[in-house]
């Protein structure tokens, strides 16, 4: 798989082999009555990161987060935070705070009391507590709402109180369980950016659990994709999207067209795959770790396929199909094209022109083509 160019001033510590991770999860397994919710997960997270654990329900992402908070004890393995073994430390003694999915605001306390709750557990003078609470209220833009009870707030306001309360003790590590899950789409997008801004200003390390891949892509410095209790892939959002390492990741993040094929040419600078499903030879412009005649999969994102009426030049990476359906989404249109093999392919096209008369319509026979580096070769 090709490497991305390194940028000059690299602020990404996970690329520096000498960097010391802030959170180190070593071979952690958690079993609930013989069923492994998390199995043999190892993960290193660095200071100042916004790390997203992404997975479907039952993938073990929440269990992993709860083990970091101390609500669950690993069946095997260790968890280190800031160089200290936290595996047996109870939640109230960890330098970690959590923002709960349900927010878990104390209903009998007002907003100020909720935020001050953690501070009062440390012996901080009440004047300083008041000052810190006011700072936090300003940070989450709720300065007017200090005396309200949680039930008098909207969902978005409650979410911000929960964030302020979790930040009050200035934790080194903040765990967020589906932080935007209960908000509507518009509010979610706004809050996403606020969350990133707050994270950058305070320099706190965030670990966010989410099932929403868009949320993970826009928030995270790195994403850990989880599947059935295991980490399927760790990487920056672009890595995960452009270079998925397995069919699961390719399908889970965004959508992908998957073709099964056999390697016909295996050279150091390119390979050729014969795929009857695709109806053409697939040319990949870089070397891949595979054997000749090996059966593997090749995945391509819908926006990386070009639709044309006329046959483009070239031999490989060109196939034919019939437009079966068009979904107009405003900014893009989604074409469903049926190849001669019967395989349905999803292609998206940006609607750059208004009322384009030349646009490809239903039941047209079209050519599909793509560049040699457009797809990913998957062996797992």
């Amino acid at each position, binding site marked *: 798989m090709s490497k991305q160019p390194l940028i000059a001033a690299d602020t990404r510590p996970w690329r520096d082999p000498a960097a010391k991770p802030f959170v180190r999860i070593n071979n952690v397994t958690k079993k609930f009555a013989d069923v492994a919710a998390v199995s043999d997960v190892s993960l290193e997270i660095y200071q100042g990161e916004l790390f997203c654990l992404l997975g479907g329900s039952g993938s073990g992402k929440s269990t992993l987060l709860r083990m970091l*908070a*101390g*609500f669950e004890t690993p069946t095997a393995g260790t968890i280190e935070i800031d160089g200290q073994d936290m595996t047996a430390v*109870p*939640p*109230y*003694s960890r330098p*970690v*705070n*959590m923002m*709960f999915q*349900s927010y*878990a*605001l*104390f*209903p*009998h306390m007002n907003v100020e009391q909720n935020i001050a*709750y*953690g501070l009062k*557990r*440390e012996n901080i003078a009440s004047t300083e507590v008041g000052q810190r609470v006011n700072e936090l209220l300003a940070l989450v833009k709720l300065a007017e709402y200090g005396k309200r*009870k949680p*039930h008098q707030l909207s969902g978005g306001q409650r979410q911000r109180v929960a964030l302020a*309360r*979790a930040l*009050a*003790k200035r934790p080194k590590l903040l765990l967020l369980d589906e932080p935007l899950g209960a908000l509507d789409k518009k509010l979610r997008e706004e809050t996403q950016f606020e969350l990133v801004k707050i994270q950058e200003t305070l320099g706190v390390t965030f670990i966010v659990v989410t099932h929403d891949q868009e949320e993970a892509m826009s928030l995270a410095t790195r994403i850990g994709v989880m599947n059935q209790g295991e980490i399927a892939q760790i990487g920056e959002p672009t890595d995960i999207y452009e270079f998925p390492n397995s069919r699961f990741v390719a399908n889970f993040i965004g959508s992908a067209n998957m073709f099964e094929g056999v390697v016909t040419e295996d050279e150091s600078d390119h390979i050729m795959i014969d795929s009857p499903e695709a109806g053409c030879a697939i040319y990949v412009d870089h070397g891949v770790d595979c054997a000749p005649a090996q059966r593997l999969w090749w995945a391509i994102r819908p926006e990386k396929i070009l639709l044309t009426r006329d046959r483009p030049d070239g031999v490989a990476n060109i196939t034919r199909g019939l437009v079966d359906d068009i979904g107009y989404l405003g900014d893009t249109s989604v074409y469903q094209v049926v190849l001669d093999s019967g395989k349905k392919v999803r292609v998206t096209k940006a609607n750059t022109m208004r009322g384009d008369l030349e646009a490809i319509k239903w039941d047209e026979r079209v050519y599909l083509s793509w560049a040699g580096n457009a797809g990913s070769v998957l062996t797992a």
Partner: protein
Amino acid sequence: MSRTPEPSTSVPRPLKLAEQALSRLGVSGRALIIFAPAVWLTIFFLVPLAVVFGISLSTKQFGRPPYSNLLTFGEAGTVQLTLHLSNFVKLFSDSLYVNAYINSIKIAAIATLIALALGYPMAYFIARASDRWRNVLLMLVILPFWTSFLLRVYALTGFMRGNGVINNFLGLFGIEPLIMMQTDFAVYVGIVYTYLPFMILPLYTNLVKLDGTLLEASADLGARPLRTFLAITLPLSVPGIIAGTMLVFIPAIGEFVIPSLLGGPGTLMIGRVLWDEFFSNTNWPRAAAVAIAMLIVVVVPIMLMQRAQSATVER
């Protein structure tokens, strides 16, 4: 076929028609539902209460009924209303009654506190138990109700009397028999034993609803388990504490059977005083006044607690 909702006019609905007919007469469904219990309460509670109140304002006399009429009809069609306040005055002037009230409140209050101290941990434990155990434990709490209350209190005498179960057991170790029967101690045992389920059940229904993530959030913010209990669990269970306390305290004040069977001559409770006035002294007006005064003693804490409860429930 489109399935847009449309007003169903096609199907005849007799109840709907009846409701429409009644609403034309100015009778709403709500009024109809309240009507039946209202009639019941009027006939079996308000009217008797008014009768008792009337009797409390008369004086004792020999004959049948053993009290004077409030209304007397004179010559030339005059009607005379005679209200005797002497019974109520007597309640305050005779230290017997005042002591009985104070003692009743004291015994009921202490028994309620003991029941709370025992019932809270039990309710908490049941609410935190696994699903399978929870039902079994709840069953054990409710089980005593399947036997008559009177029998159970009477059975307690078998435990506490001079040669009862407890003293026989202590005797095995050479301990002198303890005097438990006919003391205030026995009354406390009886009241707490009898009313404990009434404390546990409302506390349980409250505690079982407690959101576990609130406790996790508290721990996450640095509170140790005891602090979490005091700052989160306890304040959120106040409605349950109030309900349980009311259910124990109110019947305990007027308790008659338990002090009669288990208490001694020194255990002065208002229920016994009332019984004595009514049956031994045949002083119905005095007994009625005692009852009315007791009602006031009981209603005031109910009102105070209900106000406190509505203040906490408002959220």
